[in-house]
């Protein structure tokens, strides 16, 4: 049973436009969510996170939105740049004493110049 779902395996956008990556989860115990970015042949790097007590967190060009009632979160990248082309993983954890992260399968973002 996949608890964290990224239903779009790939996304292609034009440079300068907005990229929106979506993530759905099924476990209502999840209360902390993270996005990771991964280039080929490298380990994932942390991008941005959000706690369930918030519905939005912003860091420069990256904004994560959380809709708890819909069990849905999204990552917005504005404006998109060619260097943003990578695989993006959504991850979730119940937090507290449970430090196990559950990852989605990832979305490959391609930003075209």
């Amino acid at each position, binding site marked *: 049973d996949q608890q964290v779902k990224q239903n779009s395996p790939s996304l292609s956008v034009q440079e300068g436009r907005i990229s929106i990556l979506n993530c759905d989860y099924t476990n209502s115990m999840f209360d*902390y969510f993270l996005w990771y970015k991964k280039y080929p042949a*490298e*380990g994932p790097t942390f991008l941005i996170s959000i706690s369930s007590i918030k519905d939005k967190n912003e860091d420069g060009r990256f904004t994560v939105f959380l809709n708890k009632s819909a069990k849905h979160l999204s990552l917005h990248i504005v404006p998109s740049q060619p260097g943003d082309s990578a695989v993006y993983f959504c991850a979730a954890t119940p937090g507290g*004493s449970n430090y196990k992260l559950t*990852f989605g399968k990832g979305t490959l973002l391609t930003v075209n110049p």
Partner: protein
Amino acid sequence: DVKVTQSSRYLVKRTGEKVFLECVQDMDHENMFWYRQDPGLGLRLIYFSYDVKMKEKGDIPEGYSVSREKKERFSLILESASTNQTSMYLCASMWGSGNTIYFGEGSWLTVV
């Protein structure tokens, strides 16, 4: 900056060989993890450790074991490598719970 170092980037091993993947972190993190990444399957947790000599199975522990004799070092062991263990292996560490997890650069293992 947190540094998670995986000693081997690329390995080729034969079926049946015993394989050791080593990982060291320099930030005194209690928690360490081993994941594997396969196309279309995302990151899957193999084992994690929340303290020295403590370990717990993740989602896909079969065919693997781990060792954590020192806080900074977490080893993944393939007792008898098989071709379906060809993958990218990622080590990670984290301080506390519900915090950011930091990954190493990955180890590409090919079993022939």
